[in-house]
């Protein structure tokens, strides 16, 4: 293979990035890196808020009676806002934050295609979040994150209207962001980077963005009708006046099942990056992983009614069961490809890698329970029980959140120029991982024994299980502060990272940490295979970067390529 070196401009001085202040992140900016951090910081705030609500939920469930909350309605508001905040104000914006920061860098671009639109999309989120929280305090936002009528139309208060308006804004933000990603990815790839030379995170964001632009307008339509029913006297969801409650379920889930992939596909992209870099192996099955993301995006539109097995016309259950089973196939392809990627690799058990491996194990459990729920007889048995709560948390926490944690440990050095404390990172992992498992795995059991979800009062025989779950949940909640402390502490006192602490080959590492305002000095030259670890060419590519930017890498991150090529399963 011809030697490929990182770009160097003869005699060109490396621009010293302007040190950004906190106030720079509180202002309107069209720089995708600032916007990315704005997304992430905002999402982390809502993560803490949503997490605090989760702690209150678990506190309430320590006993079978209602004691912490004033009444059942207050409890309804609690879990409704918890679910909505975690989905729409934490996971989705957090993934958007990473994507905003990384996609242009990974493509060697100076910015997103529409920088102004990018900033506008972000600045819709804070008012939407405020509206959502106001809705909680106004009260009676009690229809869950799914907001099924008639609970959301006839039996909820003004908080529910604020909830719907807030979601409308978040939907618009999502669509604008997704348009930006699609255009950026299609048009702004550098010379020499075809679609199949793109990093897998970029592939994941392309698939995610396609889902967003096709599905989110459906949510907009549904919310418009919900608001009209609530404030304008229409009756789209009121059967007594010719409406249909199932209408909401159909159009809501036509958006919201694909939305599950909006939350998890970026996580898949993150994991593909992390596993390859930290096991020093080329990605096994690159094309399979890339195309399976597109397959998920496509098949994801055909499965929505599996959320409605108990209300669906019986003859439609089997077709939706089949499509739900089919969508497990591309996900399975990814999982086996990831295993193939780390197999035989020289695994560095960094904090990022630990969380990636944690994702792999926990997400598979969530995937398996998903297949179980996709089976009609089993789904009817556990419908609306804690089994479903367990499944969705294995997918969204065991999947998306663990991937986000891994991504923070991996890209924090690029964003801030400082390494996170690895010792604290490992402590964080070794508390989070078992605490997560012990919180959510027993919920399978509670569900199969018949404990319904969304209740503040439950049968006394479930108390022991609930106390156990709650204690584990409190530990899980506290473990988050280790990460937050690590981030704040490392921002000021962390070891300097250098341009490429992980010796990675994707383009975001081919510039200083943090990158200059124009991202790169000159036009960056991508390495032909973004995961071509274990070759002399890859070694030389990274070394040429180090010559340019100066090596301040962690000394224990050995350049295994120097030791000798790996017998990697390459494509």
């Amino acid at each position, binding site marked *: 293979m011809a030697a490929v070196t990182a770009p160097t401009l003869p005699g060109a001085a490396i621009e010293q990035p302007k040190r950004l202040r906190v106030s720079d992140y509180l202002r309107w900016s069209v720089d995708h890196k600032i916007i990315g951090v704005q997304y992430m910081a905002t999402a982390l705030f809502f993560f803490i808020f949503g997490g605090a609500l989760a702690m209150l939920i678990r506190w309430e469930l320590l006993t079978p009676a209602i004691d912490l909350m004033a009444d059942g309605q207050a409890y309804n508001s609690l879990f409704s806002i918890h679910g909505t905040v975690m989905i729409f104000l934490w996971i989705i914006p957090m993934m958007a934050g990473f994507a905003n920061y990384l996609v242009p860098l990974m493509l060697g671009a100076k910015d997103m295609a529409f920088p102004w639109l990018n900033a506008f999309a972000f600045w819709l989120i804070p008012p939407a979040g405020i509206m959502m929280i106001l809705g909680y305090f106004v009260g009676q936002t009690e229809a869950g994150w799914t907001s099924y009528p008639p609970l959301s139309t006839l039996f909820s208060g003004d908080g529910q209207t604020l909830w719907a308006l807030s979601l409308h804004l978040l939907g618009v933000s999502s669509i604008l962001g997704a348009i930006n990603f699609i255009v950026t990815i299609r*048009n702004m790839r550098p010379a020499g980077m075809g679609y199949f030379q793109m990093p897998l995170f970029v592939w994941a964001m392309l698939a995610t963005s396609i889902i967003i632009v096709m599905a989110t*307008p*459906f949510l*907009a339509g549904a919310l418009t009708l919900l608001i009209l029913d609530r404030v304008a006297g*229409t009756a*789209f969801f009121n059967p007594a006046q010719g409406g249909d409650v199932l209408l909401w379920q*159909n159009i809501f889930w*036509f958006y919201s099942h694909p939305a599950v992939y909006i939350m998890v596909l970026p996580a898949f992209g993150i994991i593909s990056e992390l596993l390859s870099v930290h096991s020093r192996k080329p990605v096994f099955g690159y094309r399979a992983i890339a195309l399976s993301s597109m397959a998920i995006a496509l098949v994801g539109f055909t499965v929505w009614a599996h959320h409605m097995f108990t209300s669906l016309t019986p003859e439609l259950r089997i077709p939706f069961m089949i499509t739900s089973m089919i969508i497990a196939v591309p996900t399975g392809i990814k999982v086996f490809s990831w295993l193939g990627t780390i197999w035989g690799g020289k695994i560095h058990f960094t904090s990022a890698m630990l969380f990636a491996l944690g994702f792999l194990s926990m997400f598979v459990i969530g995937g398996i329970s998903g297949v179980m729920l996709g089976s009609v007889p089993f789904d009817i048995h556990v419908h609306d029980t804690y089994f479903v709560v367990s499944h969705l948390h294995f997918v969204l926490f065991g999947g998306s959140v663990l991937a986000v944690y891994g991504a923070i440990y991996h890209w924090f050095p690029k964003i801030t120029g400082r390494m996170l404390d690895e010792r604290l990172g490992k402590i964080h992992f070794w508390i989070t991982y078992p605490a997560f498992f012990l919180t959510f795995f027993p919920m399978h059991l509670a569900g199969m024994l018949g404990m319904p979800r969304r209740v503040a009062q439950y049968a006394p025989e479930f108390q022991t299980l609930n106390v156990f779950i709650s204690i584990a949940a409190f530990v899980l909640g506290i473990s988050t502060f280790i990460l937050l402390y690590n981030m704040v502490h490392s921002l000021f006192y962390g070891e300097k990272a250098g341009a490429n602490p992980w010796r990675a080959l994707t383009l975001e590492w081919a510039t200083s940490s943090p990158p200059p305002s124009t991202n790169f000095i000159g036009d960056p030259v991508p390495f032909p295979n973004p995961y071509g670890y274990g070759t002399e060419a890859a070694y030389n590519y990274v070394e040429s970067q180090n010559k340019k930017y100066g090596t301040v890498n962690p000394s224990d991150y050995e350049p295994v390529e120097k030791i000798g090529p790996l017998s990697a399963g390459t494509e």
Partner: protein
Amino acid sequence: MAQHVAEQGLTRDELMALRNKRTGMTVFQVSWIMAFVCLIVVNWQIRSNAPSWPPAGVEPLSSILPTIVTLFLAASGWLVHNALQAINADQLGRFFSQWRLALVLGAAFVVVIAFEWITIPTSGMYSTVFRVMTAFHAIHALVIGLYMWLVDRRVRAGQVTSHDTWAVEAGTKLWYFVIVAWIMFYVVLYVL
């Protein structure tokens, strides 16, 4: 083609910006049409629940006036297409005549649909679905029509020339969107 001649004078960054705008517009159109598809699904599910449609005792909508203005709307699509070609060739007189006639036809469409909206007897879900669908479409027609009027003013002020006709191209493509969305609604409301 004149448009391509103009593009030849663009720098790499300007060409990229134009390409991005065009792709962005296409993605937006494909995306937002789904909101209209959503309302078609709503219409379909509501009517499939009813024993008959329109429900017994409810007068069906008259399609004469709406059909005429639908033809107006289709004609306006042809006119804005011509107007775009005219501005690309720096033929301002032809641009104004085609663009303004399209605006007049679009305004006639909105007025007639507003008349239908006001005069349809209130009859439960039949009229509600009609009103929501037509109002949703009319909001788009009005906002995009307003944008087209502003483009007209910019052209008159000499701010749009054959060297940069994106403002006109964007207005044209947005108006195509209004037309396609309405034809879908027309079929659902008046034909099926």
